[in-house]
């Protein structure tokens, strides 16, 4: 496959057209896998011997947490593409992904709290992983706020791209800092959240379906929102042309 052909989709018009073709299929697939995965997970898996039915929130918690991180990673990649190759679609895709990342982070935090309440007897604990997600949430907020604050779209794209790259480094540092800090605070891993290791086979298959559903949902939403951003820019360009002409 010719990799260069991929760059053709950097053209906003071509991208919009392709998205219009692909979007219905991705949306339907996302819907189907989410419904299948969640129904299977919620109603057709046994209760955990220790955690009871509470454990089933895993089907929302784990995929959303994965997407919260993946969305930021995607923003990092698209930001780099924008800075290096100056493709508008790339910058707009990063802009489009950020609010989705915020929602995913919120879902992960909320489901984590709902899960944590019966399991640990508290809604919130300064567990390293929870804390890292809270920090990630703050990074998302700053990123979106910077996009909103700047009028010139190219300036906004440049500045947010740099912020995303610098932020990634600091988010990474924070992750390690938080691990270190928490260890210092209270010993022992009583609140460890490493549940992927404990997941039994009966849970893993519907979990994979749910993860696939979340990925597809994310892709569909990013496509949709990027197309909307492209349309906004097109409107702006048309208005500008009218003023000139």
């Amino acid at each position, binding site marked *: 496959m010719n990799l260069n052909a991929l760059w053709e989709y950097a053209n906003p018009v071509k991208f919009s057209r392709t998205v219009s073709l692909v979007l219905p299929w991705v949306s339907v697939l996302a819907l189907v896998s989410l419904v299948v995965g969640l129904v299977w997970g919620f109603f057709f898996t046994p209760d955990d011997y220790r955690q009871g039915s509470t454990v089933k929130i895993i089907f929302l918690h784990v995929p959303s947490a994965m997407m919260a991180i993946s969305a930021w990673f995607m923003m990092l990649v698209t930001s780099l593409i924008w800075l290096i190759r100056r493709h508008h679609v790339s910058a707009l895709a990063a802009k489009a992904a950020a609010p989705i990342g915020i929602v995913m982070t919120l879902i992960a935090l909320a489901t984590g709290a709902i899960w944590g309440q019966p399991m640990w007897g508290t809604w919130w604990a300064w567990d390293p992983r929870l804390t890292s997600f809270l*920090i990630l949430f703050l990074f998302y907020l700053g990123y979106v706020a*910077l996009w909103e*604050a700047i009028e010139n779209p190219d300036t906004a794209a440049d500045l947010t791209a740099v912020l995303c790259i*610098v*932020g990634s480094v*600091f988010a990474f*540092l924070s992750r390690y800092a*938080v691990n270190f*800090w928490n260890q210092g605070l209270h010993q022992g891993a009583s609140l460890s959240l490493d549940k992927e290791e404990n997941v039994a086979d009966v849970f893993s298959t519907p979990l994979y379906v749910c993860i696939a559903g979340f990925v597809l949902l994310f892709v569909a939403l990013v496509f949709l929102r990027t197309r909307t951003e492209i349309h906004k820019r097109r409107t702006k360009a048309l208005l500008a042309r009218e003023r000139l002409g």
Partner: protein
Amino acid sequence: MISLLLRDLRLAMRAGGGFGLGLSFFLIVTVLVPFGVGPGSALLAKIAPGILWLGALLACLLSLDRIFALDWEDGSLDLLATSPLPMEGVVTVKALAHWLTTGLPLCIASPVFALLLSLPPEGYQWLILSLVLGTPALSVIGTFGAALTVGLKRGGLLLSLLVLPLYVPTLIFGAEVARRGAEGLATTTPILMLAGISAGTIALLPFASALVLRVNLR
């Protein structure tokens, strides 16, 4: 470059309160904390390292938006951008000037504030060491935030929102050095991490700051 540093320091002194403002803020935070949590010296001593680090961080944050704002308004930034000084040098000097007017006075005055919060005497050296190592990173990271938001109308609040998450690792390791030092625990690891963060940000972040400043000028 030295002339730019001297000019900024002179401006800070003539503007009145250039050095004093951050310190006064630090003092106010330190005075208010016992009102909030009670005067018991055992509790104060326990939370003193964290409070002092938070106070230093907020005092630092307070003066960030002035790093570029004045030079932006009066057109000096445009002129500096067309001058022989490299933009990376300009932002480094700006960060250095900010540290000399904010971070350094805080480091020097911190034992007094530690006294007010009943920090055990064996913690003083660690507190000062952690501030000396950590506050340069605060200034450099803050300069990056100031460069991002220069020229924005509601830049102040946004600046805090952007900079505070970036301060997390510095705050954690800095406060950890001070806390462990005060409690007589081993401090080598957080000291190394803190020094590493400072060195890394000082070496790399000016390039990002210069880049976003150039974007903001066009």
